[in-house]
């Protein structure tokens, strides 16, 4: 069983302990939703899963083989959608997409790009340069990237930002199809994304306790963390 799992993960950012002792497991067809207030480490966890960040402590494993042994293979089977849309203003939407499809290893990048834009409901933007796209169109283009080249694991960091309702429905369908085909999805969100049988992970369960925690070196400039106690109550 090719599950993606992490155990006892600890994330340290700028001398501040973001979360500690975090354990998760995603099996084929699974979806995992990351919840938690701003600053609770959702993006950091997704970046760790993608291999962009190294966990301070703990291990990630795919089928019980540690990821650190073979990062190249992990990159091949992972798609990451972050906060930035990586759209080049002077390239058309289709060119932007075909580039990522080719790098991802698609056979016929131009054809895949067209099909992905079609699936995201924006075939008409194919010839439009990136600089003329709206925020929502850029986001759809970025999401089309995960369809343009196949990958088992999708890591989506707040994918619904700037999307309209129709696009969110579309994203739900696409995720459901991906999961039906044995794919895995981990996403963070502040809005509701309907996913059947998705499990949730509350990141504030893993934030280290307040000022009495010895590991906190006082370098706390993040105001968002004030609402952690309240969020913990609702989570439990």
């Amino acid at each position, binding site marked *: 069983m090719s599950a993606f799992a992490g155990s006892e993960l600890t994330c340290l950012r700028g001398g501040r302990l973001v979360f500690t002792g975090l354990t998760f497991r995603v099996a084929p067809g699974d979806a995992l939703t990351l919840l938690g207030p701003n600053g609770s480490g959702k993006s950091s966890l997704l970046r760790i899963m*993608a*291999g*962009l*960040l*190294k966990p301070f402590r703990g291990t990630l494993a795919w089928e019980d083989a540690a990821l650190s042994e073979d990062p*190249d293979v992990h*990159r*091949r089977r*992972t798609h*990451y959608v*972050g*906060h*930035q*849309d*990586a*759209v*080049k203003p*002077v*390239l058309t939407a289709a*060119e932007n997409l075909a*580039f*990522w499809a*080719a*790098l*991802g*290893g698609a056979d016929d990048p131009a054809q895949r790009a067209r099909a992905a834009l079609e699936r995201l409901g924006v075939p008409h933007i194919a010839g439009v340069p990136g600089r003329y796209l709206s925020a929502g169109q850029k986001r759809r283009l970025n999401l089309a990237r995960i369809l343009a080249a196949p990958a088992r694991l999708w890591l989506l960091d707040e994918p619904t930002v700037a999307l309209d309702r129709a696009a969110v429905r579309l994203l739900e369908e696409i995720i459901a199809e991906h999961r039906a085909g044995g794919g895995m999805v981990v996403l963070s969100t502040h809005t509701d994304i309907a996913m059947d049988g998705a499990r949730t992970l509350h990141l504030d369960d893993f934030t280290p306790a307040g000022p009495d925690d010895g590991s906190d070196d006082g370098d706390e400039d993040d105001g968002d963390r004030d609402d952690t106690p309240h969020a913990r109550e609702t989570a439990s």
Partner: protein
Amino acid sequence: MNRFRTLVMRDLRLALRQGSDATIAVMFFVLCVVLFPFGVGPEPNILARIAAGVIWVAALLASLLSLERLFQNDYEDGSLELLSLTPLPLEAVVLAKVLAHWLVTGVPLIVAAPILALLLNMEAGGFGVLVLTLAVGTPILSLIGAIGAGLTLGARRGGVLLSLLILPLYIPVLIFGAGAIDAAITGMTPRPHLLLLGGILAAALPLAPFAGAAALRQALE
């Protein structure tokens, strides 16, 4: 290899559509050299004597001018992050971007150099060697510059920092580049200078992508 080519082609296409980087570098190169006759006076013998050095120093500065943006745009719009997650190793990403940078900014310098040499009254014997040294030397400038561009990524006033970091490393290239031309003009063989330049290129070609990729990983953390 296919992915490598895809990335090079994308960078070339971006450069051609934006158009600014390539033309700015070569325009700067030309203007920089043209300033010298105004500064030191139109004495043909003096100009002929300093031609090799002037052209090489101007080439260094022109190359430096465009290096700041080597990774900057990709870093700011999130492309670099995604590039580091593709199956293409980050070292290959650096090499591909350096190659595209050299094709866009280095090659026009090589083409413009003989015309400027004529302007500075350089002796005819030095023309061939001038083109040869620039052909071997400008890729070294792009390669070494990529390390600096990676290291200064995300820093404020990165361009100034980049110059301070990289210019000292350009000195050997300058010495052997200008030295080869001087040797050819004075009737000696430029071969040792050219061989040393080639040696620097042979060392920078495999090493710079590794150093550049390490710097990028640091910036992406």
